[in-house]
């Protein structure tokens, strides 16, 4: 998913199984001593551990959501707010670190598994039982049924601008429905008002994660029909908070859902999303107590200052994100159609400097999967930093004196700074790149336009802890289209086949091995230059209770309270 603030991204960020354990250990160290080391996970605030009801929590972001329609929205800030309003069948446990990647029931009564009969023995049929008595928020006030889920899913699949339908094409009948040959998705069945049965064409180990994405959240038909196109600005679901108002470019206000189904929740009366302050302004407001949580994190410029302050230091929380920053190279444009040129640039970028320029709030990335993503190969360096090698490859490619090109990024700190550093790295091997910065919304649009941008910054945040979330959006043919996320527009029949094969595999270990092989193959083609993996570092006021950072949801106001 795209992250609107610092880069394009995928939301979810779940840290995965094995590797996360190591990261978590690192992160706990940080949270406990407030940023003395570098990485970190989060732990509850020391203030008061007894939740209290009431109060207003103010969060600050620079950019407002592009949409609050769960069928369409895919920016970090979009999902951040959607998590308060909408819900789906499952959710991730509200814990920091690895524990937060565990799926737990939400509107379903249990997580389907082969053990409880929720998943058929052949791995193709998923059965979900719905929690009874859950009502849509006022003014709809109606009980949620299985029909609502089916409606929401088919609505999402048929939305003209839905970006994520490829995740669900494995559902039986999805093809026919998308092509207009069927009026419903035959594989998404309503068995009775509280039972849903989903049939897949082939087993898919990432399917439970896919249905947990916000795209599958339940929405009431009557409300969608009432607002039609305006629904994206009038969200309504079953979540703990009810949408109140959206002042364009200023703020979004949510209030407690009076008939929320989970006893004792939520704690807060009001959530106030402030949507216009730059990260540095937000930090000053936090220091004055006007903002409770920094949505965009601590700006690099102020990190050293904040870490040096004994009081502010205690308010820092940090976690490594399963996310990446790449340099994309549009293979439809010269000279990036030449694989040697792409390989050359892969050797040319000083990743350690990019990390240093962010005050250490990132990790150098030497392969395509970030650390924490299954398929990541510990210790593997696919392309290092070797300008001499880069020059040699450029000469072999027929550019002994380099070439001129354009380099693009958005204007959100620290991107202009980081990409000025990349520009200098490229100049050092003879590539004269003119750096152009633009506002992030127009940047994302232009990035998804074929044949427009030559090369530039690209970010992706994990949607769920499975490498299919990397291959599908970033390296597939389906995504190398107008509005797609494959900014390099690179794909190959060989990888397409590997992807299809891997998705059908039922042995988790062999499947992940296949994904590692795919990464090795991608490396030979070098469609992107992996640069760094970000570390989220943010702050909250001492009066914010229960604060922690979630590996998928990042900031999770449904669990916070105000002291």
């Amino acid at each position, binding site marked *: 998913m795209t992250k609107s603030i610092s880069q394009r991204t995928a939301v979810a960020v779940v840290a995965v199984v094995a590797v996360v354990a190591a990261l978590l250990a690192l992160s706990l160290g940080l949270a406990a001593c407030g940023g003395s080391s570098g990485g970190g996970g989060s732990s509850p605030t020391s203030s008061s551990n007894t939740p209290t009801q009431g109060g207003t929590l103010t969060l600050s972001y620079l950019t407002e959501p592009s949409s609050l329609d769960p069928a369409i929205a895919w920016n970090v800030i979009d999902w951040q707010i959607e998590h308060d309003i909408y819900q789906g069948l499952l959710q991730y446990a509200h814990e920091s670190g690895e524990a937060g990647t565990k799926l737990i029931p939400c509107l379903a009564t249990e997580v389907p598994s082969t053990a409880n009969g929720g998943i058929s023995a052949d791995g193709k049929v998923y059965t979900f039982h719905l929690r009874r008595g859950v009502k849509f928020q006022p003014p709809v006030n109606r009980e949620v049924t299985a029909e609502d889920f089916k409606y929401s899913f088919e609505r999402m699949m048929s939305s003209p601008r839905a970006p994520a339908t490829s995740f669900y094409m494995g559902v039986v009948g999805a093809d026919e429905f998308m092509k207009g040959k069927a009026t419903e998705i035959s594989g998404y069945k309503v068995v009775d008002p509280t039972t849903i049965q989903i049939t897949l064409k082939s087993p898919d180990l990432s399917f439970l994660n896919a249905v947990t994405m916000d795209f599958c959240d339940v929405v009431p038909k009557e409300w969608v029909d009432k607002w039609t196109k305006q629904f994206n600005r009038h969200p309504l679901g079953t979540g703990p908070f009810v949408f109140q108002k959206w002042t364009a470019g200023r703020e979004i206000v949510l209030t407690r859902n009076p008939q929320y189904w989970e006893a004792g929740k939520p704690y807060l009366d009001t959530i106030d999303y402030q949507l216009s302050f730059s990260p540095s302004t937000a930090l000053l407001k936090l220091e004055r107590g006007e903002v409770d949580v920094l949505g965009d994190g601590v700006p690099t410029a102020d990190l050293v200052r904040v870490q040096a302050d004994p009081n502010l230091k205690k308010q820092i929380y940090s976690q490594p994100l399963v996310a990446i920053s790449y340099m994309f190279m549009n293979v439809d444009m010269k000279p990036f159609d030449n694989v040697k040129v792409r390989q050359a640039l892969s050797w040319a970028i000083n990743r350690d400097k990019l990390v*240093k320029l962010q005050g*250490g709030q990132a990790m150098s990335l030497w392969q395509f999967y970030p650390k924490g993503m299954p398929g990541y190969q510990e210790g593997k360096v696919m392309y290092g930093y070797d300008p001499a090698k880069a020059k040699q490859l450029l000469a072999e490619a027929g550019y002994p004196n380099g070439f001129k090109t354009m380099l693009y990024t958005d204007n959100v700190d620290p991107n202009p*700074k980081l990409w000025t550093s990349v520009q*200098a790295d490229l100049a050092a091997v003879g590539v004269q790149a003119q750096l152009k*910065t633009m506002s992030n919304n127009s940047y994302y649009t232009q990035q998804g336009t074929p044949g427009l941008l030559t090369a530039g910054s690209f970010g992706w945040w994990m949607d769920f802890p499975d490498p299919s979330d990397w291959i599908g959006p970033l390296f597939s043919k389906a995504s190398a289209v107008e509005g797609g996320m494959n900014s390099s527009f690179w794909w190959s029949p060989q990888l397409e086949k590997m992807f299809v094969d891997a998705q059908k595999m039922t042995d988790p270990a062999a499947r992940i091995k296949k994904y590692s092989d795919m990464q090795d193959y991608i490396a030979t083609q070098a469609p992107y230059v992996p640069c760094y993996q970000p570390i989220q570092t943010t702050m909250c006021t001492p009066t914010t209770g229960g604060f922690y950072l979630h590996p998928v949801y990042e900031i999770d106001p449904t669990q916070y309270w105000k002291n």
Partner: protein
Amino acid sequence: MSYVPPEGPGSHKTISGLEPETEIDLGLGSTVSGTSEIASAVGAAGMWSPDALLIEHRSLWGEIWRRFRRDKFAMVGVVAIIILVLVAILAPWIAPHDPTKQYDSGLTMQGMPVGPSHEFWLGTDTLGRDLLSRLMYGARVSLVVGVLANGFALVLGVIFGLTAGYFRGWAETLLMRMTDVMMAFPIILLAVALVSVLKPSIWILILVIGIVYWTPMTRVIHGEVLSIREKEFVDAARLTGCSSARILWRHILPHLVAVILVYTSLGLATTILFEATLSYIGLGVQPPTPSWGQMIAEGQNYYLSAPHLVLYPGLAIMITVLAFNLVGDGLRDAFDPQQRRR
């Protein structure tokens, strides 16, 4: 503002009315014709004296320079501008470092800019580049854009102003209403729109600033020409059969030199400031070429942790703008002693 032909220090208001309207060739820097000098000699001495004539015989420009020189602030401005121009011209030779090189030693372990040191006299910026060298190279951008953009605005302003003021009629209506429209438009918005449509580069910047800033010059020149064209010497020129072009070039334009000089130096201050503004919002010279406005934009997030990043380029802009303003004020006073005394 009106132009009074400069004469000797002696007051001869009473005599000046009697002065024959001779062709005063100010524009080419030569002397005022002899008649008025003789008149002032008479005025000063009270009687005819060849000695008095000798003493009072000064060139027009010498006279202006003499008055200008007495203005201490203006002289400070001149010195500042000379230094600035020298720094800009000599930057490649006197700058201690390459302004675009990102030094490893220019960043602390935490990736923060370093303060002033033996190696980096004013410290470094957020990417480890030498701040002093960047300031020096930034002066080039400011001056080149300032001078060329202002020159462009000047040419447009003078042509439009002369045409509108001299020919009147529909040309005046058209040009002056166009000027009004342009002046009513928020110039920063106009410039941002123009730069966004075109591709930001130093030449586009010059063009855009010129397009945005020709209006004040047009207004002033138009007003001046309106009064000058009614003067007897213009009538005389017309009666002797001079063409309009000759009248404009030889008889009217020379009277505008003072106005043009004053407005040019004041305009330079405005244009340099405007260039900094556009660079600040990212529409000026593109990185890594340093410009002062861009340096402030890059350093602004660091204003609590490394205030020198905004302080030095800010001072550079302030000093430059102030210098041109002081010189402009000094010139106006030098050209127009009456107004000064008021």
